[in-house]
């Protein structure tokens, strides 16, 4: 089966932007709820959220942390900021519009209704209490609903595969970025004194807190958490899980594909997967962890660019 290159590109970015929006709202909501507890443990507050999901500089991050309504407005509904939820859903919708004949009606209507919700003229006031938490809940539920709709209505096939490659590239990068924010703040110390209250925010932002509690005992949190977010094959937001999903969908789009460039693309992906799969977390130290995270990020970006070049070059 083939597909117009432009449509494949649209589907890739539709799902990638929606995945970014999903990660953003998950992180915003959890951080917002945790912020009601006074921070006695140096847990960094909103800083990782702003570092991982926005382009705010240190001075702005400092200002926004002191003004939560403004911060929510900045990350959710400031249409002039490229990574606000409103912009992300707007871009997802543009891609959905461009591929409207290849997505299901249910999917289109869901993206469209999220778009109209965020475009509403009262959106700013919905992000101030007593409405703010309700609005964040609503947006997170809509994002979950989107993922359910995609899963239960979209036909499997080449479009589905490109969508999912986009989604898992995004997920891989999000996990690396958020992990980097938390480890960077403690200078990549692998055996430091940080307790679970420090790491809870990272885990909640990746929906991995309960899994962590079930699987781990003892106080070696940094290393255990790293093992979960990087190499745990059963944790759906781990880097390795994301790469294994990408591998499956990459196989689907490269099988029987006569384009010569696909072999090089497969090899490039193989190198990335091996880097993560054969990482031994117990051997990492503060220098090699930093290097590992940088390498995964760089190789994922490069793979994404190469994929675009092979399949989406239509202009």
């Amino acid at each position: 089966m083939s597909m117009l290159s432009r449509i494949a590109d649209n589907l890739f970015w539709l799902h990638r932007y929606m995945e970014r929006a999903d990660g953003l709202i998950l992180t915003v909501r959890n951080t917002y709820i945790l912020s009601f507890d006074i921070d006695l443990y140096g847990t960094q507050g909103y800083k990782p959220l702003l570092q991982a999901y926005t382009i705010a500089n240190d001075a702005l991050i400092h200002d926004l942390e002191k003004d939560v309504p403004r911060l929510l407005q900045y990350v959710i509904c400031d249409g002039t900021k490229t990574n606000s939820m409103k912009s992300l859903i707007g871009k997802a919708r543009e891609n959905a519009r461009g591929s409207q004949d290849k997505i299901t009606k249910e999917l289109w209507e869901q993206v469209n209704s999220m778009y109209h919700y965020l475009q509403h003229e009262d959106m700013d006031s919905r992000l101030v209490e007593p409405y703010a938490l309700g609005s964040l809940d609503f947006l997170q539920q809509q994002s979950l609903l989107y993922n359910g709709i995609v899963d239960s209505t979209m036909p499997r096939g080449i479009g589905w595969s490109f969508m999912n490659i986009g989604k898992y590239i995004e997920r891989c990068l999000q996990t690396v970025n958020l992990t980097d924010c938390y480890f960077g703040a403690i200078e990549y110390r692998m055996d430091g004194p940080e307790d679970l209250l420090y790491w809870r925010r990272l885990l909640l932002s990746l929906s991995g807190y309960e899994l962590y509690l079930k699987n781990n005992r003892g106080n070696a949190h940094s290393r255990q958490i790293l093992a979960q977010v990087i190499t745990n094959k059963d944790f759906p937001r781990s880097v390795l899980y994301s790469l294994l999903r990408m591998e499956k969908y990459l196989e689907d789009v490269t099988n029987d594909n006569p384009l010569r460039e696909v072999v090089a693309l497969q090899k490039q992906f193989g190198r990335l997967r091996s880097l993560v799969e054969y990482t031994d977390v117990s051997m990492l130290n503060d220098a090699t962890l930093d290097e590992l995270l940088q390498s995964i990020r760089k190789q994922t970006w490069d793979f994404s660019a190469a994929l675009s070049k092979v399949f989406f070059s239509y202009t």
Partner: protein
Amino acid sequence: MAYLDSLPSFSGWDEMFTYEGVRERYTRVFDMLRGLPVEVLNQKDRQAADFFMNQGITFTVYADNKGIERIFPFDIIPRIITGIEWQHISDGIKQRLKALNLFLNDIYGEQNIIKDGIIPAKLIATCPHFLKEVVGIKVPHNIYIHISGIDLIRGADGVFYVLEDNLRTPSGVSYMLENREVTKRIFPEMLANNKVRMVNSYPLELNNILAALSPREVEQPNVVLLTPGTYNSAYYEHTFLARQMGIALVEGRDLVVDNHKVYMKTTLGLQQVDVVYRRIDDEYIDPLVFNPKSVLGVPGIMSAYRKGNVALVNAVGNGVADDKAVYAFVPDMIKYYLNEDPILPNVPTFRMEDEDQREHVLANLETMVVKETNQSGGYGMIMGNKATEEQLELARTSILENPRNYIAQPIIQLSTVPCLIDGKLSSRHVDLRPYALCGPNGIEIVPGGLTRVALSEGSLVVNSSQGGGSKDTWVID
């Protein structure tokens, strides 16, 4: 109910009421409306608006550097046509399309209609939509007009007249289909009780016609719909039709011509395209032949068309047949090609090139509607009875400067249908655009069409670009 305590006032022909009461075709609808509180009707009105908004059936209005999405207004009260009336309309449109198609074959071929003195050569030569580039091209099955939307109006005498022919890329068919879908949701019982003829066979019929035009004899020809892109006001319709037919929706940049064949760029490389249902005007379809600045079209597609390697739907060059000055000659064409009298009459039309007709119009400008011959969508139109002195003077000067560019018609009081406006039923003027499909097996017209409504009180301008809305259109037996 309060909103029906006093019936809407109207002059001329109303589709629901006579001066004596409710027309028979509307009795079931009227009884049902009478049983519903106005709050329920208003709620159904909002439900319909949400349906359109959530589906993205919108257009964008730009103000203060912000794009605001609006829906095309939909009025929930249906417009009803009887089966007998429909038969008459359908016969008339088929007859007209046969003649227009023969005209296009003739005008891009032997030009006998000119040689026999039926149509002046100058009229064709000065028509900007007559394209020398397509003279002599053999179109599949001799069909030029595969898809058409003929605009009809009903006058105060109850007679249907043809207002204009749309033979290039008529739009609005998705509204016809979606209007029915929303009616199913808001008035399911009313729809079922009235035994309304089905409209949703349209995409299937269109798909069959498109596939039948493939130059390659392959089991599954590659049919695509070519759109100008997401910023086009009819983009929703393009996606709707592509989805309903299961064909690829392509933009110009997705296609490439190589060795007089058209290909689309896919994830598996290039794939040949057989039929292009194009929603791009002639002028923009091929920058190598027509407008060189066009970035919407496909360079070289006309060479593939000329070689017969790709079918274009509608054919290129149809604009000469729906030019507003050529329109005046359609009854003569029907007589000339078919030796029949027109079943559906034209609105009386004055050609400004004719000195006597021009003088008559200039002397009675305030009772005329003046139209530019190469415009559509309600642009370039002046209603004499509503225009200011300055506008009338401008029209007068423009006509005298370039008479070929204008026609005039007496202002016809379009029929009315009650609409739900501010919680009350009020009469508004309507027209009717049935959609006809013409393939190797003949002409099919989906029973109904798009009823467009002039939503401002007293207005006769129904175009969506000028603030018009639409209604579901029922043909009942």
